C-alpha cells in the first residue's frame, strides 16, 4: 500500500533520521560563507518487465537510496552523496560540500525546521504500480502482443515494456524548509515490426504518467498503444523516401511539441543564460516568435509525466510563461540561478537522483491553442510535409541549431495529406523557427507521457504539447535530393 503523504514524520522515519540530526548536519554544512545548503534524501524502487518474441522473459527490479548534500557559495556548488544514510556519512558529506566556501568549520546558523509542503497533491496514488503483482503486468504485455499481431498479418514481431518507479524524497534546506514527496511514475511502451517483401519497418507508441496502474486499463489505453504502434509500422511499409530541402511543414498536435522543447525550451533554462551560453541570452522582452505563439512550462498538471508537487529543491512547481504572443517573457530557474540572476524562482530545479546536482529543467512545455482548425492549416499548404510523430531530437544551446527525426510523416499536396514518407529529419535554428509559425490550431494536445530529457548526463521525465501548427519554412533532410 502507498504510504500516506500527509506528515513529514513519515518521511523522517522512512529515512531513519531525526529533526535533531538534520539540524546538526545542516549546521555543519551551512557555515559562514555558504549562501545556501540542502539535503536531499531519496528512496526509489524501479521495476521493469519486457516482452519480445511473444515471451515476457525479462524482469528486473532495483532499489536506490541515499542522500545528497549541497552547499552553494556565490556561483560555486559543493556536492557530496552517499548510498548510506548514517549520521557519519551525513557529516562527511557536509564537510565535503562546505569545502566549496573555504570557510572554517563550526556550527552555522540554521533556522528551526518548518514544513514547506504545498497544500496540493497532483498525483495521489493509493496503490503504486510497483505494488501490483508482477503476473498481472506480464498478462497485460501478452495481451498487447496478441492485439498488435491481430492488427495486421504483416506484424512479425512485437516488443513491449512496462517500467515503473516509486520515488520517495525528503528535502531539507538551510532556510528551514522541510518538504517530503512521493512521486510515482509509469510508462508502457510498444514497438512493432512489420515485414513485407523483405522490407522491415518499425512503429513505436506508448504513454504513461504519475497515476496508478489502472491508468493503462482505462479507456483501453494499452490496446490503443498496441494498435498505434502496429499502424505506424504497417504504414511505413508503403512510405516513400522523404523529400529534402526547405519547405512548409505542418506539425501535428501532441508529441511534435518536442520542437518547442528543443528549439526554445533548453535555450530558456536559466543556467545557460546566466553563463551567456544560450542563443537566447539577453533577449528578454524581445520578439523571438510570431505573435501567434504563447508558450508555457507548467509543472502543475495533475498526473502528468513532467509534473511535480515540488521540484527537487523543495520549491512548489508553477506555470511559467516563457513566450507571450511572440515575446520572450521568462526563464526557468532553480534556486542558484534565480538568486544569481535576481529573477523569480519558478520551481524548475530538478535532478535525476540523489547522486546529481539540481539544475534548471523543463516540466511540461507546450504552446497554447490558436484559432485555426487543423483542416484549415492542412488546406493552406500547396506542397509541404505533415509531421505527426517523432523519434527524438537534440539541440546545440549556443547557436540554437536543432535536429529531430520524424517517425510518421506525410506529403501535403494541393492542400491534402497524401503519401506517407520515411526518414524525414527536421533541421533548424531555435531563435528563428518560431518566427515562421503562420498558423496555430485550436487542438492543443499534450503528449501521451513518454519523454525523457537528457542534460549534462542527467535524465528526467518531461512532457511536451502542441496544437497543430504551420511553419512556413523548415529544412527537411531527406533522401530525395
Amino acid at each position, binding site marked *: 500500500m502507498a504510504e500516506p503523504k500527509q506528515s513529514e514524520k513519515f518521511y523522517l522515519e522512512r529515512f531513519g533520521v531525526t529533526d535533531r540530526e538534520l539540524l546538526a548536519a545542516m549546521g555543519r554544512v551551512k557555515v559562514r560563507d555558504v549562501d545556501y545548503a540542502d539535503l536531499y534524501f531519496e528512496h526509489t524502487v524501479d521495476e521493469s518487465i519486457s516482452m519480445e518474441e511473444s515471451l515476457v522473459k525479462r524482469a*528486473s527490479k532495483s532499489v536506490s537510496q541515499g542522500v545528497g548534500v549541497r552547499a552553494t557559495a556565490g556561483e560555486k556548488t559543493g556536492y557530496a552523496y552517499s548510498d548510506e544514510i548514517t549520521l557519519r556519512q551525513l557529516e562527511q558529506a557536509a564537510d565535503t560540500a562546505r569545502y566549496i566556501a573555504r570557510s572554517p568549520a563550526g556550527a552555522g546558523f540554521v533556522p528551526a525546521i518548518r514544513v514547506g509542503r504545498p497544500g496540493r497533491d497532483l498525483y495521489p496514488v493509493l496503490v503504486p504500480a510497483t505494488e501490483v503483482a508482477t503476473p498481472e503486468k506480464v498478462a497485460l504485455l501478452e495481451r498487447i502482443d496478441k492485439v498488435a499481431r491481430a492488427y495486421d498479418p504483416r506484424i512479425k514481431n512485437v516488443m513491449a515494456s512496462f517500467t515503473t518507479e516509486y520515488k520517495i524524497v525528503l528535502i531539507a534546506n538551510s532556510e528551514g524548509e522541510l518538504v517530503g514527496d512521493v512521486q510515482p511514475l509509469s510508462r508502457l511502451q510498444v514497438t512493432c515490426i512489420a515485414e513485407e517483401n523483405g522490407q522491415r519497418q518499425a512503429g513505436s507508441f506508448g504513454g504513461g504518467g504519475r497515476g496508478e496502474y489502472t491508468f493503462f486499463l482505462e479507456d483501453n489505453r494499452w490496446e490503443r498503444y498496441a494498435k498505434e504502434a502496429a499502424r505506424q509500422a504497417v504504414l511505413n511499409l508503403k512510405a516513400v523516401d522523404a523529400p529534402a530541402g526547405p519547405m512548409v511543414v505542418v506539425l501535428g498536435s501532441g508529441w511534435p511539441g518536442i520542437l518547442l522543447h528543443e528549439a526554445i525550451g533548453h535555450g530558456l533554462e536559466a543556467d545557460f543564460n546566466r553563463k551567456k551560453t544560450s542563443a537566447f541570452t539577453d533577449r528578454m522582452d524581445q520578439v523571438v516568435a510570431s505573435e501567434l505563439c504563447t508558450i508555457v512550462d507548467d509543472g502543475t498538471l495533475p498526473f502528468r509525466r513532467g509534473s511535480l508537487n515540488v521540484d527537487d529543491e523543495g520549491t512548489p512547481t508553477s506555470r511559467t510563461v516563457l513566450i507571450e504572443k511572440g515575446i520572450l517573457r521568462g526563464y526557468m530557474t532553480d534556486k542558484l540561478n534565480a538568486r544569481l540572476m535576481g529573477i523569480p524562482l519558478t520551481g524548475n530545479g530538478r535532478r535525476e537522483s540523489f547522486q546529481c546536482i539540481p539544475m534548471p529543467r523543463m516540466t511540461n512545455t507546450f504552446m497554447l491553442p490558436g484559432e485555426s482548425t487543423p483542416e484549415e492549416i492542412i488546406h493552406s499548404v500547396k506542397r509541404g510535409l505533415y509531421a505527426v510523430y517523432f523519434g527524438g531530437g537534440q539541440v546545440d544551446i549556443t547557436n540554437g541549431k536543432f535536429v529531430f527525426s520524424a517517425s510518421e510523416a506525410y506529403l501535403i499536396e494541393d492542400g491534402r495529406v497524401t503519401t506517407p514518407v520515411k526518414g524525414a529529419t527536421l533541421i533548424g535554428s531555435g531563435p528563428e523557427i518560431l518566427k515562421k509559425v503562420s498558423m496555430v490550431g485550436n487542438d492543443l494536445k499534450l503528449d501521451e507521457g513518454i519523454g525523457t530529457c537528457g542534460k549534462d548526463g542527467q535524465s528526467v521525465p518531461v512532457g511536451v504539447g502542441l496544437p497543430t501548427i504551420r511553419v512556413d519554412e523548415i529544412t527537411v533532410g531527406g533522401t530525395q535530393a
Partner: protein
Amino acid sequence: MTSRRIDQNLTSELLAQEKRKGATAADVVAVEGDSASVQVRLSAVDKLSKAQEKRLGLRVYFGQRSAGASTSDLSPSSLDELVETTCALAQAVVEDPYASLPDPAALAKEWPDLDLYDSQTVPMDGMIELATRAEKAALAVDSRLTNSEGADFSAYGGRTVFANSHGFFGEYQGSSFSCAVAPIAVQNGLMQRDYWYAVGRKLNRLDSPEAVGQEAGRRTVRRLGARKIATCRVPVVFEPEIAGSFLGNLCSAERLRHIQGRILPSRTTGGAHRPRPGHGLRRRPHARRPGLQAVRWGGAPHA
C-alpha cells in the same frame, strides 16, 4: 542500519539463500567505489562533487526462468528482501530457452592482471588546478574563444566483485581519471561550442591538461563561419570520434536484426542488474547535447 561488507562471505551467503528459495542457479555482482569531480568555469570553481557508492545486483534462475534485481541498500534486511524479490520476479516470467549461466567449463580459473587500477589520488585542489589549466589552454588558442561551459576533472576508484553458483568468485580493482573542456567561440555575435577530453585508468598516462585544452580550442574555433550547403550526394569523411560511434549503432542494429531475424539474441544483462556507474564513470561530461527522447523499447532504464 549497518551495511554489509562486500566480500566472498556475502556472495556465498546470498547464493546459498537463493538456492534455499529453490533457485537452480544464480549470480551476484557488487561494486563499491569513491569518486570525485570538479568543474571550473572561466578559471573560477563552479562545482565540486564527492561520492561514495555501493551497489549489489542479483540474478536468479529457476530453470529457464530468470530475473535480476539490485540495490544500493546493503543492510541485512534489505538484502533479504532483495533475494525474496528476485526469486518472485523470476517465477513470474516465462521460460526463455536461451537463459542460463555460462557453462561451468567456460568459466575462467585464472586471469591476467590487466593493471586497471591506479591507487593515486588527487586532492580537490589538485583537480581544480588541472581543470583550470585545461580551460586556460583552450581559451588561449584563439582570441575568439571568449566564453566556456567549463572544464571538468574527475577521478574514480573502486572494486567489482562477481560470483556465481557454479563456484566462480572473482574481483578486481579499477580506476578512471578524466579531463574535459568545452570552450565557446564567438564571431559576429554567433556562438559555436565544441569539446575535447581525455580519459584513462592511470593518472600519469592521461594527456596533459594543456593538450586537452588546445584540442578543445582548435575544434571549437574551426566551427566558426559555418555555412549551409545545398542538399547533395557526396562522399563523407568521418573523424575517428564519429566513426567510432557508428560501432555502437552497428552493434544495436545487429542486436535488433537478431531479434527480428529470430536468431538467438546475444545475452545481455538487464539494466537494473548492472550497478549504475557514478559520476566518476561518466566519461564524457560534455559529449551530449541536451535533448529529448521518446524512450523506446530497450531504451534507458528510467520509467
